[in-house]
């Protein structure tokens, strides 16, 4: 097993306390890999591109593409895949919140999804929005969920086919969920504030520049209306990108454990809250912690920095 010191010095040279950054993966760097590589906590939740190619039109499986690029699905997608738009399909059109249980049942019915359907999510940006959509499905209690490792970029990099044909599925009878699991896997601003005050783990998954308050937008993205920069007091910086390889696939279980358990010091018995700007990158980290590392109590603060950085009297910390 790679020692924490080895990994830290290799990947985080000269970084200040609380800031855990990972340099872009360097092919020349070879981590010591143990002979008996530990497995992900829930290995079944990750499926390969090859597996999806073999199963994309299986009636018990629904492949779901969810992207940031709003027209990407329309330019071509995996055969049989349906499109779920994070904004128009999953968010309430008026209130900043998710759709109602009734609307979720309608959405699933529209795509022929039943509570037993295996929903396999994939998308652009190393699966940011795929993880976000998966997290919303989990909010409504849909448990049979998967992520296609590497997302859309890996599929296309492998030269796998895309189609513009949009399949229609017979409407299913999806029962209206009794409740949304907001208390279990979602955090609100006041809960994040309480977390901060009590010194419990808060993980800021944004870029280091956003965390330090040097910029108020995501690198390479436009402003999203944040008045102040910085981070929630006590939050540790673990950019989402530390969890993935250059091809968008997730790092090995040992590497993930090193990043989150050893270097960041997260323990299984802790309540953990992750946040970013609007909840998509933190969904990615939520997925890693919950499914790949098996942390039992992780919540995604989806209000994130666009709420915290604008809300009156919220405490903010900035790194020197």
């Amino acid at each position, binding site marked *: 097993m790679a020692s924490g010191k080895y990994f830290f010095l290799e990947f985080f040279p000269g970084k200040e306390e609380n800031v855990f950054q990972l340099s872009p993966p360097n092919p020349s760097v070879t981590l010591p890999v143990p002979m008996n590589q530990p497995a992900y906590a829930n290995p079944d939740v990750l499926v390969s591109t090859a597996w999806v190619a073999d199963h994309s039109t299986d009636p018990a499986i629904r492949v779901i593409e969810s992207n940031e690029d*709003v*027209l990407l699905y329309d330019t071509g997608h995996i055969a049989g895949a349906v499109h779920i738009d994070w904004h128009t399909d999953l968010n309430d059109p008026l209130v900043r919140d998710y759709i109602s249980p009734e609307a979720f049942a309608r959405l699933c019915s529209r795509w022929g999804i039943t509570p037993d359907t295996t929903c396999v999510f994939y998308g652009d940006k190393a699966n940011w929005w795929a993880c976000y959509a998966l997290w919303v499905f989990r909010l409504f209690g849909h448990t049979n969920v998967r992520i296609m490792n590497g997302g859309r970029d890996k599929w296309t990099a492998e030269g796998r086919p895309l189609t513009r044909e949009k399949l229609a599925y017979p409407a299913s009878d999806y029962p209206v969920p009794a409740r949304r699991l907001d208390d279990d896997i979602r955090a609100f601003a006041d809960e994040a504030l309480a977390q901060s005050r009590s010194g419990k783990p808060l993980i800021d998954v944004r870029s280091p520049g956003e965390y330090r308050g040097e910029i108020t937008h995501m690198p390479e993205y*436009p402003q*999203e209306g944040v008045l102040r920069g910085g981070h929630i007091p006590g939050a540790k910086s673990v950019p989402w990108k530390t969890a993935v390889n250059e091809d968008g696939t997730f790092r090995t279980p040992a590497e993930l454990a090193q990043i989150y358990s050893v270097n960041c010091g997260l323990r299984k018995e802790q309540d953990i809250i992750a946040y970013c700007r609007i909840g998509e990158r933190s969904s990615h980290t939520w997925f890693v912690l919950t499914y790949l590392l098996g942390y039992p109590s992780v919540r995604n603060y989806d209000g994130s920095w666009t709420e915290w950085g604008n809300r009156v009297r919220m405490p903010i910390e900035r790194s020197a």
Partner: protein
Amino acid sequence: MNKACPDPAEPPAASQYPPKLAAIVSLFEGLPDDEKRETLISYADQAARCAPVEGETYDLEDVRKDEECTDTVGIFLKVAPDRSVHFRVSLGPQVQILTRAMTSILCKGLDSSSIEAVLDLPADFVPRIVGGQLVRVRSQTVYYVLTRMKSACRAYLNRERAAAP
């Protein structure tokens, strides 16, 4: 009502845009959402044809990667003796589909317009083409290419003024 004082809530008529752009706006406004998406993708597919042509010279070239944009965008401006403009645009591979579509629309819609018409063009035609559902904070770069085209026109005028005796 005093016609000299238009209701600010009323959207401008498409005829207030340069003629070719007005025709595109009218086309999109008549389309149902599904066809609108398909048409946008058709325009996006044509964006490569807007790239600068080898051997062609331009009066102004502005190629850069802005911090808030996902990839490099190059604006190539040619001004004819009658002061009408012709744009070519190069786009990096990471540029999103909607921005590619808007590039194609702008190159076609603003072709042969005057510099002044480009500078005066309000951005309110964008949601009329794209539709409200697709314009979101994360996709504000859909306005970016227009901003860069205007910036190129301003730079051209400034250079022209500076060179004037």
